[in-house]
């Protein structure tokens, strides 16, 4: 089992709805929670993580700040299209520290994961790290 959402492992963030070059979406997959992607206003906000291959997902962890409504979707296509809902959750507010949430991947397979931030506790939110434990799917 590896973190398959690392840039080092070949993962990418091909699409994100906000871009401030000081806080780019690549910061989500650099393995560090000090660096982050900042949203630049309004909701929903989305980003997609693309794996090197179809993966079987065991667990998904996200470190973020001021995120309220969060939904995840997966796609098994080569291109990031035809997403299906996986789960949705309202995160607890946490003023003084990062939010850390874990989701079971239920061993479903995905080539792309889409994160939809539907609302926030502030005008701007940040995503510091996404860690996806999984392995190449045998299908």
């Amino acid at each position, binding site marked *: 089992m590896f973190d398959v959402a690392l840039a080092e492992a070949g993962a990418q963030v091909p699409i994100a709805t906000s871009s*401030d070059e000081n806080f780019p979406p690549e910061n989500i997959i650099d393995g560090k929670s*000090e660096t*982050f992607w900042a949203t630049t206003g309004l909701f929903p906000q989305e980003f997609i993580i693309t794996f090197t291959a179809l993966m079987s997902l065991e667990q998904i962890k996200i470190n973020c*700040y001021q995120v309220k409504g969060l939904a995840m979707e997966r796609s098994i296509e080569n291109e990031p299209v035809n997403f299906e809902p996986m789960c949705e959750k309202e995160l607890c507010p946490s003023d003084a*520290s990062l939010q850390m949430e874990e989701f079971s991947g239920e061993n479903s397979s995905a080539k792309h994961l889409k994160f939809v931030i539907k609302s926030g506790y502030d*005008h*701007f939110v*940040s995503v510091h790290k996404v860690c996806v434990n999984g392995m190449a799917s045998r299908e």
Partner: protein
Amino acid sequence: MPVTLRAKCLIVGDSAVGKSALTQVFHSDGAHFPKGYSMTVGVELCVKNISIPDTNDTVELYIYDTAGKETYSDYAQQAWEHPSVMMVVMDVTNENSFMACNRWVERVKAKAGQHIPGVFVANKTDLEGRRVVERNKAEEFAKGKGLEYFECSAKEQNNTDAPFYYLANAYYKLYQERVEVMKTIAS
């Protein structure tokens, strides 16, 4: 690469105070003051980019010009959700429009559920002889509500851009402050 922030600017106040006139004059860079009165039905949306001085950054303002009435259409309701900044407008020749502002401010604040930058705009200053709301009273109200105060005339296109620029800059400042907090929290 410059940054573009996006903000939802909600414009509220009684009917006929000049909300649509202010919005249209600003949106058209002064090319268009609507001469005839046409009542806004529900909400009208327009978008305008504002450059932040001394940077290459911009704030994209999504301006929601609301009707000065309660409306119940889904679209109008949606427009009220999660405002980023607010503009509360009164007509200096209409005391009632001033009295109503407290209710407008509180309604937007309740919708926002958090601090949002705001301005209080006293419009129609061109109608000097008919003015009934004194400047110091209006200013005092604005201060009490934490709003920046502006006087303007949409008709004469006098000072109409200033409140919008103020809001864009206040929002930009908020972003910079929040990003500093994010850095601190993460380290």
